[in-house]
């Protein structure tokens, strides 16, 4: 059942409100800018589709249009942070951190500056734009960089909170964002703390048969799978891992050990993302059977978001299958 302490919205299964996670960025960054005048926003010719235009409207003097130049986007932001500003810079994740990764590594990472890299259009759910614009490797790229925190919000409201928190962190942050409108599960009352995973679903008075760890909007599919499984007498836990780095080891190990097997769910290559991070943790601390829901070493293609998520095996039925498969592997 949905845990009361998660304080999720009502009707998230039957009639969820929807909004893209990037809309949460648009709201959150205006709030961050209101709270701290050091916050500036830079974009590479994508003000509206990255939702930076809200900040542009609210604080035109603190918005900087960079043109189509992602390397310059990262390095100008680094220079501004070196001076003392708190820059957020936005583009599509395939371009930033895709094209400007070395600049981010050297001028933001090694310099350890307070810069928030915002990669929009993550996942195949970008839809019709096709493979070139569907970022499926960005968490892997950013998770390997020292000093960086990596955040993937599950919905618009969590994204709003995460943006405000990122502005206060004082060190480099990568945030990934989705394009498509997806269910808004969390509320202003839902707990959010960078580095602290939230358990959203637990069995009532029983041990879970599998622990599902999900990130981004696919948390909703994980919850749908948990509900359907519960209807057939199979109990699982679902944890929203919004912070990929640093990983909340305590919560993940606790939930994994309680269930004895694990399913990871992400709209990302299974190599190097959430599943990879959890597998590294389990291999060191508590080896357990694990199944990975995500992209299996493939690029995406054009299509509608929902059909692409289904086609590439990240739908509710796939998560249910993975739970059955991994449960059967328990010794």
């Amino acid at each position, binding site marked *: 059942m949905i845990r009361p302490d998660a304080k999720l919205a009502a009707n998230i299964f039957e009639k969820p409100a929807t909004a893209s996670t990037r809309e949460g960025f648009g709201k959150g960054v205006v709030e961050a800018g209101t709270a701290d005048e050091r916050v500036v926003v830079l974009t590479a010719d994508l003000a509206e589709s990255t939702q930076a235009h809200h900040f542009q409207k609210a604080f035109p003097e603190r918005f900087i249009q960079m*043109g189509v130049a992602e*390397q*310059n986007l990262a390095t*100008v932001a680094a*220079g*501004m942070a070196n001076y003392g500003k708190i820059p957020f810079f936005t583009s599509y994740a395939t371009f930033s951190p895709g094209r400007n990764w070395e600049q981010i590594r*050297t001028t933001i990472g090694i*310099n350890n500056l307070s810069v928030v890299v915002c990669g929009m259009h993550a996942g195949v759910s970008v839809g019709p734009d096709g493979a070139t614009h569907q970022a499926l490797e960005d968490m892997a790229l950013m998770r390997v960089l020292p000093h960086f925190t990596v955040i993937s919000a599950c919905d618009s409201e969590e994204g709003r909170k995460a943006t405000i928190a990122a502005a206060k962190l004082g060190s480099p942050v990568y945030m990934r964002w989705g394009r498509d409108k997806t269910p808004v599960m969390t509320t202003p009352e839902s707990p959010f703390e960078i580095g602290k995973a939230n358990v959203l679903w637990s069995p009532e008075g029983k041990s879970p048969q599998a622990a599902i760890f999900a990130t981004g909007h696919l948390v909703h599919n994980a919850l749908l799978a948990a509900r359907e499984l519960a209807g057939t007498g199979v109990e699982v836990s679902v944890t929203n891992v919004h912070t990929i780095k640093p990983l909340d080891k305590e919560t993940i190990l606790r939930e994994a050990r309680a269930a004895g097997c694990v399913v990871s769910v992400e709209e990302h290559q299974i190599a190097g993302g959430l599943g990879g991070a959890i597998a590294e943790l389990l291999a060191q601390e508590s080896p357990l059977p694990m199944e990975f829901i995500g992209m299996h070493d493939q690029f995406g293609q054009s299509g509608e978001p929902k059909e692409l998520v289904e086609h590439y095996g990240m739908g509710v039925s796939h998560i249910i299958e993975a739970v059955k498969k991994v449960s059967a592997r328990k010794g």
Partner: protein
Amino acid sequence: MDTLTDDEVKRLEAKALAIRETIVEMLTAAKSGHLAGPLGMADIFTALYFRVLHHDPKNPALPERDRLILSNGHIVPVRYAAMAHAGYFPVEECLTLRKFGSRLQGHPEREKMPGMETTSGPLGSGLSQAAGYAYAARMDGKTFRVFCAMSDGEQQEGNTWEGAMFAGKYRLTNLVGIMDRNNIQIDGDTEDIMPLEPLADKYRAFNWHVIEVDGHNIPQFVAACDEAKSIREKPTLILAHTTPGKGIPTIENDYRWHGNPPGKGPTDKIPADKQKEVFLSELKAHAV
């Protein structure tokens, strides 16, 4: 106009010689690193640290200091040597260059060395960082200047031109680029590897004010930095023509010395074990 007296010029030239000697000593001790570039930029770094920059070696974080961003991090020995001679740290510490535990990393790191404004090495990203710094400082009404020293080779990087375009668009008058036009890069002469000319026209086309100087003529360089102050609607590029390996005639203009220290360079003129001594004596003999 910032006019130097003859005595001041002599004093600065003596500093430049001392800095060059330190560069030869530190690179020999390091057994790796770049020699030609640092020697070629010794006069300019002398002018910067002993005349042009507003700074305080005893307070590297001075809020109103001028910022010097070094884009081509591989010539950092000249910056370390100039900083040491200016009083940031003991000159002897230069001998720890590239060694385990040293603050003097092979390529400079901001977090390790106070006064090192940024981390660099991968080419082409310094001008944009300097431009971002200058932009942010102007937002807050700051009046210090941001200088960016860069190489000619890194003008082959797209990022450099993205930064140049940005600085031109936003009329960053508080930004001064200093290009070390020494015509060599690792694999050969720049005009053979990937031609750069006409550099001055290119920057002018990007809405920069360009001043060409002899990079070994300290009064000319100081005057150019002064002229940049009076340019109120554009960033300024000081295009400094330099001689790689300047001060050691045996290696001047020889691209093979771009990435080698004394003792590890070409031996067709001087045997490896004699290179340091010969270079130090050539420096003294040819000092102006």
